[in-house]
């Protein structure tokens, strides 16, 4: 069973003249980290909102095709039911935290699911620890920084023990420090916890280091999909879709174009450093010697 399956999905928001999604088909396997890339209006948010049933249940419109979330057709279950298996984090840090303390915020989901009290306490501590917000229990969400707010939003989703986490441009309103904090948490979720993650982004700089696959979107249609490394071999394609290519893939493309025979591809600074110092510069030194 797949975590998420879109089969020829088209969607038009109620009152809108144009399709937000058109003929979109893709699937996410359990444990996979997939990053959706595209400019504003490319359909990233629509896919995110469909992944836990907010579309079509809370945001009505004309939905064609089949969306399956852990095997369940999206129209046949309520958002509350999907919330047990899918956690979602939105763009705006301020408007998705509505409780008067961090602890209440993280406990809100499990409380609604009538989880026993002791277990809620354990889950709150576990989730806050995971996102690096331990000890912030009694703080008001209003008093937190953007990065802290988004990490609390992640903890609030994780405390419901979902199998899949969906994040709709979570770094949108964050400063560089906030971005760094957020991506450290996402990296840990992928590498230590094997969480299934669907991430929508406009700037893939950090996410490519641990995304299994990239899905490119343009005007509600899929413009490309594949393993992260393969998609990044063509940085110009990303640029043409309005996505800033990661600096490392631009570097690799530049090296490859200047050095016939080389086919570099870097997903992280560490990888670039290792490859270049071991292979490339070593060969150069050998040649000069």
């Amino acid at each position, binding site marked *: 069973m797949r975590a998420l399956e879109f089969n020829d999905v088209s969607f038009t928001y109620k009152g809108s003249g144009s399709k937000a999604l058109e003929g979109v088909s893709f699937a996410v396997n359990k444990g996979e980290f997939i990053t959706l890339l595209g400019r504003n209006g490319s359909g990233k948010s629509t896919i995110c*909102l469909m992944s*836990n049933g*907010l579309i079509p*249940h*809370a*945001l009505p419109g004309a939905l064609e095709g089949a969306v399956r979330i852990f095997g369940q057709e999206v129209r046949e279950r309520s*958002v*509350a*039911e999907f*919330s*047990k298996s899918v*956690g*979602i984090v*939105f763009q*705006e840090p*301020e*408007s*998705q*935290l*509505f*409780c*008067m*303390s961090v*602890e*209440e915020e993280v*406990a*809100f*989901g*499990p*409380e*609604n*699911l*009538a*989880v*026993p*009290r002791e277990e*809620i*306490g354990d889950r*709150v501590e576990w989730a806050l620890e995971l996102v690096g917000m331990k000890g912030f229990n009694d703080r*008001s*969400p*209003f008093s937190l920084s953007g990065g802290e707010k988004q990490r609390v939003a992640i903890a*609030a*989703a994780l405390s*419901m023990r979902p199998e899949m986490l969906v994040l709709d441009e979570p770094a949108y309103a964050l400063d560089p420090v906030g971005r760094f904090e957020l991506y450290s948490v996402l990296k840990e979720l992928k590498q230590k916890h094997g969480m299934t993650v669907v991430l929508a982004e406009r700037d893939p700089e950090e996410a490519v280091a641990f995304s299994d696959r990239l899905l490119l979107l343009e005007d509600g249609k899929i413009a490309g999909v594949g393993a992260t490394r393969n998609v990044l071999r063509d940085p110009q394609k990303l640029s043409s879709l309005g996505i800033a290519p990661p600096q490392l893939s631009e570097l690799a493309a530049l090296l490859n174009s200047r050095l016939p025979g080389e086919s570099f591809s870097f997903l992280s600074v560490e990888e670039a450093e290792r490859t270049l110092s071991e292979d490339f510069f070593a060969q150069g030194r050998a040649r000069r010697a």
Partner: protein
Amino acid sequence: MTVFVDLYTDADTFLHRLDPRVKIVAVVLLSLLALIIGNLVHLLVLLAFVLLLLALGRATLSKTVFALKFVFRIMVMIVVLWPIFDPSGTPVLAELGPVKITEPAIWKGVAMAVRVCCLATVWYILMFTTSQRDLVRGLVKLGLRFDFGLALAIALRFIPTFGVTVESITDAQRARGLELDKGAPLRRSKNYVAVLVPTIVSALRTADMLSLALQSRAYGARPDRTYLRDLKMRWTDALALAVVVTIFAIPAIAKYLLDASL
């Protein structure tokens, strides 16, 4: 934050530790008491008791003055205006055309001012010894529907957020040349439309997002919702409640019997 000041003051006193339910019930009873008794001496006794509570909660003078400044003004107005508009009783102390100043009216005005002071102080004690979180929790435990409690909590939680929104919109409009403090009153209020409209739009957008966030977190999934933190009545809470009920009951019953015998 200039737009809103949360009256709650963090401290570890008997009043702060008291179960919020007991505090809410106590405040309602003491308010009723202030409304029932009309005798100035009795009201002064009640005021003394309320001020004792204020001291027990270790209220700081500056914050108390800040919170009750408005009430002091109203008290002065009552003391001044009551005798002017109440010509009842004798002896008449002064007479100026249709205005008759009588001695009982002066005392009535003072009593009314003390009553207002009691009411305001009692509620102020509740607000400065109880965090908003405990207040909402207490109301829900006293029988307020959970969704109403949540709405109240969200309203309180978003007051500072909207304060920030209003500030930044005001700054943005000022940067574009909007002069909010200039011109005649009508013109000035017209200028505020430029702040009001974006604020309302922003509020509606936030409300939309909130509804999505609430649904995504299984809001309303089950009627038998659990709570991480529960309120527990300790013997001190029970004792405090008993004391307040007694303080309320004795004058209330006395007043009832008195009224019945007349």
